């Protein structure tokens, strides 16, 4: 930080806010977003009897530079960020992806007319992270 300040040109106060913006968390920071769909929209309601609505959720947003403490990201994520910023911009920035999921129970009519109740793993995103 001292180095950065030493390097930084003496900037008049009104640019200072610009200068510090780079350390703030991005406005559209990586976070979990709501999304609800009904199987009728997918025209699957003929064979999926329940639930009527399904909220898979999704992760979207920019990953801040200091991801460690906020997202539990591994150190590799910050290394990848430095590579992107200082060495090779063709290396992608870390992405905002789901870190945890919860299961979903579905009741379906099978092709042979039998009825199945099944519980599937990892069908609803519950937490996001940067990787």
């Amino acid at each position: 930080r001292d180095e950065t300040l030493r390097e930084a040109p003496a900037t008049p106060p009104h640019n200072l806010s610009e200068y510090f913006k780079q350390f703030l968390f991005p406005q559209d920071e990586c976070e979990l977003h709501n999304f609800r769909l009904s199987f009728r929209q997918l025209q699957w309601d003929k064979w999926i009897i329940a639930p009527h609505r399904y909220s898979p959720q999704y992760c979207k947003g920019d990953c801040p530079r200091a991801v460690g403490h906020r997202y539990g990201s591994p150190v590799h994520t910050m290394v990848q960020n430095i590579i992107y910023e200082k060495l090779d911009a063709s290396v992608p920035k870390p992405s905002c992806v789901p870190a945890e999921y919860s299961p979903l129970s579905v009741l379906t009519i099978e092709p042979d007319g039998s009825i199945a109740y099944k519980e599937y793993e990892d069908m609803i995103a519950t937490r996001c992270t940067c990787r």
Partner: protein
Amino acid sequence: PRARGRVVPDKLSGLLVAPEDTARELNPLLWLPTGVRHGYALLPPLLKVLSDRGPQHWESEAPRLQPDSRALRYMKRLYKMFATKEGIPKANKSHLYNTVRLFTPCSECKHLHRDLRKGDVHSVDLHFNLDRVAALEHLLKSVLLYSFDTSVPISSPVTCMCHLSAKEHDSSGQVCPSVSQSVAFSPHLEVRKRKWVEIDVTSFLQPLIAAHRRNIHMAVNVTCLVGDPRQNTKLENPLHVALVPPSLLLYLNDTSEQAYHRWNSLRHGRKNPQRPRQRNRPPVDPAGDKGNESLQGKRASRRR
């Protein structure tokens, strides 16, 4: 295998499984070209649809056989017991099954329905096609589900005996009963509470399912005795209702990758890295001050 520490079914054996078994395991309707088979093998059948065919496919797909309305009503009730409105499995389920399948007997079954008035028994010949049971779905419990019309009052106590016998087709095509089992139940108590009577046939079906038998052919005789079994009892049909052929309910534990394993999530919860680790306190030395001394020593050494 995923780092979740879950007992992952051995994918290699999955790869070694004969194609027709794999086909049975993966929804045969969604059978993928060989090139991408294994890449999609882990996608829940629900989503293979999405990855494999667009919505237009569903219009052209052969119409699904419509299930029996009573069976549908039963399964909707079961769904409400096991999951919330949003479809989240309820945590209070104490058992290990993550799959329940209900089969109604095939339509072409003969229906031996002799006159019940003369105290005869109700006998029916059932044929269940269990092709939908995947190789990785292990049977935990199975019941025959008789639905009753509860508007009929049942006066005196009734005990019924259900006799099951599986029919094997031997080489000459002759049908010979191979496994048989008798199960007692008292509809008097059961029917009053709800429209269904469940007859546990787990021990009867277990060997057949374990042997990957998918065409189950069985004869079911229900004999009911009215009044106190110790006195003279009459053979008659106290229920005065036409017993419709029963459905077969299988409670299964799907051990595949995409199925939800509640025991695993419980175990996973215990190993949750976020949970603060128990700080290991130095063992309290029962030797009193000598113990303190050593504690002093320990503190000094730790400080060093």
